[in-house]
């Protein structure tokens, strides 16, 4: 193979034979491990790959997965979903957001329910469409409810730049962008978490660079492998970490070298810096308050900030998940979804009680859907 075809970028990294070969190699090497490797895949995209390709069943018992908090929809606390609903219910308003967010229940209803009730709520394919919608509806307030990890933040920043540069007056932003490293620290903080290896996110790292995980190996003595999203990538990342353990190393390595560098996308990072800054507090659904774990608009852009402009109608009371929900404990690897009393009974993907059942990238949801693991 001398010239790369688009097809190779898909098929090459999903090849069943390569998957089996890598799994076998991991199995051989893992015999030498003196403790179970409890790998947290921080990102929901990895959770999806791991479950879809049945990697836990392919790998030996001493390689275990702990599904991380990395799904932007799952970590959104109910009070902020209530914000989106309150904004959507304002007179003469169009509320915009991305993907799954529409379905997730807040304290009483969801955006989908409110849309069915007649409010103008739209899920965008790209944040860029917000500009078009604002221009086409000059007599309406258009509010973009921006969600996502570091991967999606620069896209919001690009839209803010256009809004500022073009002097658009009716487009406002409710920023819910969150950051990976503080969430990982919060999970590891009390020293109880069983995690002793990390698969670093693929596309968060494309933007931020692998450098954002530099302190993890030192702080927690854990190997980190920044891996791509395909099953071959994930397995190769695991192989790298097994090797580190066997050799007594705890280092940051990049498996996904075809897309991730140490530095990341500097242009995107600068764009974010121009419009956003760290937010002192953000409550993560299932984890709780984490300082400096999210972003907000810089004060120069208060005139675009829906949270400030419409503060009087936005609820401020924190709303927790059901008290039976043990998502926080599951995230630390101290419990499995099946240990939850309401798993699959009162709590299902159609009526989630807790954050990890909310989207296909959450651990309870993944266990529920891939029935094989239900046993």
């Amino acid at each position, binding site marked *: 193979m001398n010239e*790369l075809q*688009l097809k190779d970028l898909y098929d090459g990294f999903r090849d069943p034979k390569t998957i089996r*070969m890598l799994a076998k190699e991991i199995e051989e090497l893992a015999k030498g491990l003196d403790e179970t490797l409890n790998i947290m895949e921080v990102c929901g995209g990895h959770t999806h790959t791991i479950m879809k390709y049945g990697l836990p069943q392919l790998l030996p018992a001493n390689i275990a997965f702990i599904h991380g908090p990395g799904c932007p929809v799952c970590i959104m606390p109910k009070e902020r979903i209530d914000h989106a609903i309150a904004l959507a219910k304002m007179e003469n308003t169009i509320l915009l957001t991305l993907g799954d967010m529409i379905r997730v229940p807040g304290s009483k209803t969801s955006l989908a329910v409110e849309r069915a009730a007649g409010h103008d709520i739209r899920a965008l394919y790209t944040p860029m469409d917000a500009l078009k919608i604002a221009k086409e509806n000059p007599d309406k307030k258009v509010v973009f409810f921006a969600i996502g990890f570091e991967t999606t933040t620069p896209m919001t920043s690009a839209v803010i730049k256009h809004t500022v540069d073009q002097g658009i007056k009716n487009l406002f932003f409710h920023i819910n962008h969150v950051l990976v490293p503080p969430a990982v620290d919060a999970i590891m903080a009390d020293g109880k978490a069983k995690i002793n290896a990390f698969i670093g996110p693929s596309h968060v790292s494309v933007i931020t660079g692998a450098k954002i995980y530099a302190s993890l190996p030192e702080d927690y003595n854990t190997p980190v492998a920044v891996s791509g999203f395909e099953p071959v990538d994930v397995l190769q990342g695991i192989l790298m970490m097994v090797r580190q353990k066997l050799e007594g190393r705890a280092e940051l390595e990049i498996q996904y*070298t075809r897309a991730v560098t140490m530095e990341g*996308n500097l242009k995107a990072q600068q764009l974010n810096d121009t419009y956003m800054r760290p937010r002192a507090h953000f409550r993560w659904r299932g984890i709780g308050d984490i300082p400096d774990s999210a972003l907000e608009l810089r004060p120069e852009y208060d005139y675009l900030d829906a949270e400030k402009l419409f503060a009087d109608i936005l609820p401020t009371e924190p709303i927790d998940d059901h008290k039976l929900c043990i998502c926080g404990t599951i995230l630390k690897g101290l419990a499995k979804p099946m240990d939850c009393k309401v798993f699959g009974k009162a709590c299902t993907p159609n009526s989630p009680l807790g954050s990890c059942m909310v989207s296909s990238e959450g651990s309870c949801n993944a266990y529920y859907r891939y029935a094989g693991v239900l046993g």
Partner: protein
Amino acid sequence: MCLSIPSKVIKIDEETNIATVDTMGITRQAGLELVESEDVKVGDYVLLHVGFIMNKIDEVDALESLKVYTEILEKLDEEERAQAVLDDDNCENRGTT
């Protein structure tokens, strides 16, 4: 939702700063705001995320990884064939079945 898809750049409109990309037969438009203009050219492989090009995929690197996997697989295949011949030579029922 962070799943980003590899695509190939087939056209760049410098005026609108928008690229046309091919994602396995589907043609889409993608914003170029997040990449330096000299970095992305027609024919390049890129990652697409919510309507923007996020970066360029390192072609040499991708080819190199795929080559390594193919080589290991070929080596394993060869070992398997050699083992099969060996097994046949040592077969206790040789000539009896």
